[in-house]
C-alpha cells in the first residue's frame, strides 16, 4: 500500500476563523486504493478538512492537494476527479433523485445511465420522489449516489453512513471496497469507530483541529484488548501474574483472577498453565475501547 500513488494530501493545512482555530497544521496523505476513516468528535475539524480538500474553503496556511493539483486554485480540475458527500445532504427540494442525478451527470458531462440503475438498486434509493418528502436516510442514499457518479478517483464522504439502516450500510461498504480495489482513494469521516472499522484500512483521529494519530486497522486490532476472567481450583499466591507483559488491571479475589491483556495472550496462558484452572473466559474488547485507550494516551501528552 505504501508504494501506491498519493491521491490527496494535506500539508500543515490550517484554517482559522477569526480567533477560532478550526484546523491546526494537519498533515495527512491518502493513497490510491486506500479507505481512510477520519475520526473525531463533532466540531473536531473533519468537515473543515473535507471542505478544504474540495476547495470550498481557502486555507489560512498550508495546502490541500488532490492528484497533484492545488485544491483551492485548481478546484474545477480537482472536482472532475472527486466525488463529494456533504455532511448534511440538502438537495433541491422539488427535484427527485432521478432529476438530481441527471443534472449532476450532465454537469459532469457523463452518459448518466451508465451504472446508475445498478447503484440505485444496491443503495435502495427512492428515485422518483421529491427530496422534500424524503427521510434523512433516503436523502443520504441519494447523496451517496450523486457522490459516486462518474467513477471518481477520490471520494470525500462526510459522515456517509449516519442515518442509514445496517443493511444499506453494509452494501455501501461493499461498494466502497470495490471502488478502493479499483484504485479509488476514499476518505470517510465519522465520530464513531464502529461505523468505519469494517471498511477502513487506516484511521486518522482528529480532535480540536489537531491530528492526534493515524493508525492502521491491523495495528489497532493487534493492540486489541482482551478482558480475561480465570477461576482456579485454589487461590494462587498474590502477585503471581503482575509481571506478565501486557497485563493490566489485575485483580485477584481468592480463586478468581480478573485482568486485561493487551496484544498477544500467550504469556498469560503459559503462566496460567502452572495452576489448575476450572474456568476461563476471555473476550476481545471492541475496537472502540482500544481506540479510546490509545486516544486517551495521546491526549495526555
Amino acid at each position, binding site marked *: 500500500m505504501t508504494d501506491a500513488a498519493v491521491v490527496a494530501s494535506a500539508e500543515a493545512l490550517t484554517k482559522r476563523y477569526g480567533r477560532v482555530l478550526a484546523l491546526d497544521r494537519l498533515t495527512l496523505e491518502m493513497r490510491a486504493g486506500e479507505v481512510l476513516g477520519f475520526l473525531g468528535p463533532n466540531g473536531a475539524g473533519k468537515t473543515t478538512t473535507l471542505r478544504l480538500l474540495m476547495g*470550498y474553503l*481557502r486555507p489560512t496556511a498550508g495546502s490541500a492537494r488532490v492528484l497533484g493539483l492545488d485544491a483551492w486554485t485548481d478546484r474545477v480540475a480537482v*472536482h*472532475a476527479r472527486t466525488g463529494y458527500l456533504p455532511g448534511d445532504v440538502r438537495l433541491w427540494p*422539488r427535484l427527485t433523485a432521478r432529476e438530481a442525478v441527471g443534472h449532476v451527470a450532465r*454537469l*459532469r*458531462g457523463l452518459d448518466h445511465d451508465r451504472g446508475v440503475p445498478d447503484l440505485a438498486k444496491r443503495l435502495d434509493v427512492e428515485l422518483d420522489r421529491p427530496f422534500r418528502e424524503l427521510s434523512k436516510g433516503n436523502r443520504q442514499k441519494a*447523496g451517496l449516489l450523486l457522490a459516486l457518479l462518474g467513477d471518481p478517483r477520490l471520494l470525500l464522504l462526510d459522515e456517509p453512513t449516519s442515518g442509514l439502516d445496517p443493511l444499506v450500510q453494509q452494501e455501501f461498504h461493499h461498494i466502497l471496497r470495490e471502488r478502493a480495489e479499483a484504485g479509488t482513494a476514499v476518505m470517510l469521516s465519522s465520530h464513531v469507530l464502529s461505523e468505519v472499522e469494517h471498511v477502513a484500512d487506516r484511521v486518522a483521529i482528529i480532535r480540536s483541529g489537531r491530528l492526534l494519530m493515524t493508525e492502521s486497522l491491523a495495528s489497532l486490532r493487534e493492540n486489541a484488548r482482551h478482558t480475561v476472567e480465570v477461576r482456579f481450583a485454589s487461590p494462587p499466591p498474590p502477585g503471581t501474574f503482575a509481571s506478565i507483559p501486557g497485563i493490566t488491571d489485575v485483580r485477584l479475589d481468592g480463586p478468581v483472577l480478573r485482568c486485561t491483556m493487551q496484544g498477544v495472550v500467550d504469556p498469560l496462558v503459559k503462566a496460567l498453565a502452572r495452576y489448575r484452572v476450572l474456568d476461563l473466559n476471555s473476550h476481545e474488547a471492541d475496537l472502540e475501547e482500544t481506540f479510546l485507550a490509545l486516544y486517551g494516551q495521546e491526549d495526555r501528552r
Partner: protein
Amino acid sequence: MSTAIASRGEITRQMLRGGRRALAAWASAFAALIALYAVIWPSIRGNARWQELFSTLPQTYRAIFTASGQLDLGTPAGYLGIELMGFLGPALIAAYAISTGAAAIAGEEGQGGLEVTLSAPVARGQVLAERTAALVIDLAVVAITAGLALWVFSLAFGMHLGVAAIAAAAAALGIFGFFTGAVAIAVGAATGSTALARGLAALVAVASYLINALAQVTTTVKPTRPLSPFYLLFGNEPLQHGLRSAGALGVLAVSLALVAAGGVVFARRDLA
C-alpha cells in the same frame, strides 16, 4: 476540457425548470394587472376632472406618482404612465427580480444545493453567469408578457398604444428588473447572505425611485437624478415618448458590472 463543454447551459436550464411556477405566477400577475387597468379605462377616458385634480396636486405628489411629473391623464399612455409605469409596474418586477436574484447564489447556498452543483467540475464564475442568464430569460418572459398584455388590451379597449411605445415600456420594466436583480445576485454571490442580498437590492431600488421623485422637487437632490436607474428608464415616460437608449444601455452596463464584481468576490471567498 470536454466536461466543461458538455455542461454549458445546464445550470441555466435547471434554474429555469426550478423557477417555472414562480415565473408563471408573476407573468400572470402582470397580465392581470394590465387587464384590470384596461377594463377601467373606458370609465376614466374623457373625465376632465381627473386631469384637473392631478394638475392641482402639489408637485411633490405628482413626483411620487409619476416618473416625470408631466403626464396627460386624458390619454391612455398618460393613464397607464401613472397607474402602471409610475410605481406599481417597476415595484412588481423589482420584487420578482430581487427574490429570484437573491435565490440564485445565496439562496442556493443556504439551502445546500450550491455545494452539490459546485462539487461538479464547474467554475464558480460559470455558475454565476448561467444563473444570471436564467434571470435575464425570466425577466424577458415577464416583460414580453406585459408587452403582449398591453398590446392585446390596448386593441380590445381602444387605447391605441403604438407597438414601439409598448416595446419601450416593456424594455424599461425588464431592464429595471435586471438592474435590481443584478444587485441581489451580486450581493448574494459576494456575501452568501440571502437577507443581505434582498435587503440591499430593495434599498437600492427604493433609493433609485426616491432620488427621481425628490429630484423633481428639491434642488439639492436634482443633480443626482441622472444616477437613478428609475429616472434613466422611466423618466422619459416610455409609453409616451419611448426609451432613451443611452440611459437604458448605461443601466444595463452598470448591472453587468455589478454581477461581474460579485463574481470576482464569489470566486475568492469561502462557501458558507
